[in-house]
């Protein structure tokens, strides 16, 4: 029979991973759906009992989101206003059952092109902290998620936390998700935007990311550059153009056509920016 470990200490978890291949299990909301009609008979490392991995803490002005922090934990946490996009995404992941079990880190590790957690964290400039018996390392999120269901995580590594850098008090963020029904819906496209205005009301720093329109969600750097220095008012949406989305590679699937995705993504980007000006 397969082995199942549920250690309470991170160190024990890391040595278990060092001891041989194991599938990491967190909230199980991606793990079990991938095994419909099958028995679980691989070796499992369940990380949900590791107390030190759970919860959101302020760290160096930013946030440290422990690996087993659930979407509900994130929603309940008193976060600064620039984290609103992240909390809006949390509210849109599955239904409450999924939010109560599913973890932010699991969402990143699962690396679905439609992962709702990725655009907000990308826009905010988050990093992923990986731990193994050899130590810890950090990777920008964009370098961690490599493709559809592919990450830079080594077989002996755990994601121990997601780290969000600080933004100023004035910064605000927003997340918009487009799906074909209200609840429990995989995004056709989604957009996260964060804008930090200067004292004069001009864009000092910003991040805009689009998900479900390429294998990995992407930052729109050209747009971000074009926005810096712009006045943050309702006309800001009009600054976004289809060329800014040129790096996206949307596909046709059961949820929508590539053409529609490109078109809708631009609408969402504009609306996201406008909502931050309101």
């Amino acid at each position, binding site marked *: 029979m397969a082995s199942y470990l549920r250690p309470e200490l991170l160190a024990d978890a890391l040595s278990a991973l060092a001891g041989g291949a194991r599938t990491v299990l967190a909230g199980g909301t991606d793990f079990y759906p991938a095994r419909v009609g099958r028995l679980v008979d691989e070796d499992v490392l369940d990380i949900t009992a590791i107390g030190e991995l759970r919860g959101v803490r302020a760290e160096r002005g930013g946030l440290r989101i422990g690996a087993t922090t659930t979407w509900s934990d994130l929603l309940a946490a008193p976060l600064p206003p620039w984290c609103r996009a992240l909390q809006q995404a949390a509210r849109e992941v599955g239904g409450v059952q999924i939010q109560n079990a599913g973890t932010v880190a699991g969402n990143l590790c699962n690396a679905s092109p439609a992962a709702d957690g990725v655009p907000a964290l990308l826009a905010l400039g988050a990093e992923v902290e990986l731990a193994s018996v050899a130590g810890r390392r950090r990777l920008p999120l964009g370098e961690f998620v490599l493709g559809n269901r592919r990450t830079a995580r080594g077989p002996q590594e755990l994601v121990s936390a997601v780290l969000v850098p600080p933004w100023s008090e004035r910064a605000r963020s927003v997340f918009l998700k487009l799906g074909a029904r209200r609840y429990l819906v995989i995004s056709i496209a989604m957009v996260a935007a964060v804008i930090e205005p200067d004292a004069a009301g001009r864009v000092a720093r910003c991040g805009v990311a689009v998900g479900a329109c390429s294998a990995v969600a992407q930052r729109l750097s050209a747009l971000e550059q074009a926005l810096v220095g712009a006045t943050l008012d309702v006309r800001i949406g009009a600054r976004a153009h289809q060329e800014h989305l040129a790096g996206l590679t949307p596909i046709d699937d059961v*949820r929508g056509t590539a053409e529609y995705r490109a078109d809708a993504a631009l609408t969402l980007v*504009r609306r996201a920016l406008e909502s931050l000006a309101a």
Partner: protein
Amino acid sequence: MNEPVEPGLAAEAGAIAFRLNGVARVVAASPASRLSDVLRESLGLTGTKVGCNAGDCGACTVLIDGRQVCACLTALGQVAGRDVTTVEGIARDGALDRLQRAFHAHGAAQCGICTPGMLMAATDLLARNERPSESEVCDALGGVLCRCTGYRKIVDAVLAAAAGEVALAVPAAGRAVGSRAPKTDGAAKLTGAERYGADRWPPGALWLRAVRSPHAHARFSIGDLAALRARHPGLLDVLTARDVPENSFGIFPDHKDQPVLADGLARFRGEAVAALVGEYETVMRIDEAELPIRWEPLEARTEIGQALAATDAPIHAARPDNVLIRGRVARGDVDAALAQAAFVAEGEFATSLVEHAYIEPEAGYAERVGDRLRIFACTQTPYMDRDEVARVLGVAPAQVHVVPSAVGGGFGGKLDVSVQPLLALAAWKLGRPVRTAYTRPESMASTSKRHPARMRARFGCDRDGRIVGAEFHGDFNTGAYASWGTTVANRVPIHAAGPYVVPNVRATTRAIYTNGPIAGAFRGFGVPQSTIAHEALLDELAERAGIDRLELRHRNALRAGQPTPTGQVLRASCGLAQCLEALRPRWRAAVAAAEAFNREQAARGGDAGRRRGVGIACMWYGIGNTVIANPSAMRVSLRKDGQFVLYNGAVDIGQGSNTILAQIAADALGVRLDAIDYVMGDTDLTEDAGKTSASRQTFVSGNAARLAAAALRRKLLQRLEVGENAELAIERGELVGIEGGRRSAIPLAYLPADARGDVEVGRGEFNPPTVPLDADGQGEPYATYGFAAQLAELEVDLALGTVHLLGIAAAHDVGRAINPTQVEGQIHGGIAQGIGLALMEEYHAGRTDNLHDYLVPTFGDVPPIEVHLIEDAEPLGPHGAKGVGEPALIATAPAIFGAIRHATGVTVRHAPATPDRLRAWIKASAR
């Protein structure tokens, strides 16, 4: 019957200890097992349901430390030391708690398969938020899908429970009909006690797992299975076509085209080619790659056009042109009428494959008992199952005993056999009980769907908007096997001109074989598709003729005394005009409000605007089978213990026939509703009531129940020697008749009982009168018709192509509402399915075999619904009642499409109007 593995108290090494419904438990099972499996299989608590094992349906929702999670996504190991609450833990000391009572009173559980999940999610919410708002209720329960109720009554129930105590209606004797009596089988659905197909199994039952074709069309050969069996000692048998005595089944006696196990040729993706039978763990561990099956894929013709073009290699030799059947109704001279019409509208319309998506996947068990076979499974038609299984096994029908389980939703999809012949074969051959439950992907791939239609229609009217002629042709993709394709092809032409007076009609159909998924029966048998076509064209005619859309329909509405396209003259119960009149005030206000909103939006400019629209659509629907006899027989007895029993062969699939029939029987007997017990569908105990489809059980079986109860009443009054107006009662072990001041009594103990304990039995039978159709489809195909009009208000986001429904109003002529709560429930649920058909449901074989790629409406997708019950009594119906099950759904999609057209100017020609399609149409129309 189920064997809970009672865990020892001391935690063994590796055993998991937790509190379950307040009691400490220790379970020795693999810690990576899904909690749902452990609860059901190891602990025997089957109240937690499994609809998908993927987090998509929420039926398995339980509370862990008070918070809702999916038990199917929770490792047993994760509940160590925690508190788990399941639906079995809600009722207090055996009595329903406030939330359960609220569900009961509001009719919030129909089939009840989603109910445990709903209750758990709501319990979590109410513990955290004593007075939630409607949107908070939707947010909290949004992770649980319901396919029956349309969610509105669930929201009402949760809000009512939050507001305080809830009263249950208890009708007095003789007052059951017309009351809002809660479901007679409702309590079991609220406590988790109800047993669905997967919830009961005999000790030692083996597991059956079907092996299915990954190709839409392929030849295959199965090699030597001995090596496989040697490798897996727990694998007791592998059934193949060779094991099937008579390897064909199908709905119609003269056309049995579907094999139980394909014999060397698979005609659709998901077709069963073999069945592994053995110990559960062994059978589930076997990798399909291990099976010695050699596939030779062939060209798959999944589309109508491909199948019609490719007659060189027909899908079935018996149909060289791939046309299963043609249907036709012709009356008058349609060409001349359209040539002379003042206005003509025409168009082509297409619909997609739609999946029933009941939350309960097919499941059951079979067990050989001597030379008989018992089958316990979910079904809509126990007698057809019995005959089908007997035929396949080559035994007499009397040797097969079908015991229907509670059914977790059917909608037509459980009219065909699924697990039954497979289980029967295995149990018969091995002499051991065998069980199975389809996985969600398996259920979706292998069972029937709604026919995709390709339709062309032309309608013409005169200057006053009176319809002068209608022409319709529809091709229906029936997939690899006939299933109910014939019924669809025959029913559609009768209904294709709509519920209007149309003097000249030519309506034709074809059901076409392809290598697509089997299309069969689905709420409405093709009429929802054809209604999309005629209602779109009526909107166009109204526009051309400059007549309000509702008024044009009102002017043309079929009324008593006027002929239908089959030449039938309805003498009564033809309430479409009243339905439209009921909606007229809201219609006028809504149209004016939408147009004002749009003017204001247009004034703002920009392409990111929103537009509102209002649509109206009408429908009619013949109740019962098309011409074919569809009798029902019921018996009502008095048992020696003083209980009245309704022997009811009609399966309640959640629509409520158990309650409706008992209400009718109670009033006909003159006793209280709670004096009536019932036995449902058991083929050894009840007579054939026919299938639960075609919206026929209230009308047809309702009459049979009324006649049976009246017969019993007559017999009892005779025994008591009292007159026919006497009051009947059971008092202290005596049968009592009271007439005027006179009391007559017989001790029940004096009456001899038959083998079942019945001391007197009344029998009733009803077969609705019809007149066969001639070659032009002229005749009287149905004894009565349901009518309805629905109105939809919505807002379209022009830039995204998304539709936000604001409200729906539905007026239905149901003859008489035997139970208004249940009728409303049917209408709400039908509307929810109509919303799915209109906006999101589209099945693609192999790509949407789950409930996250195949989308059905959730809590947030069904707007407030206003129901108007029009009671234009049907003289033939029990208390004037007709049916409503299917009519509920038919007008919804066309009303939504009419509203989209009103909002955007775009005519929806391809359902569903998904955001990408609608956006593309809006862009194209702007050019």
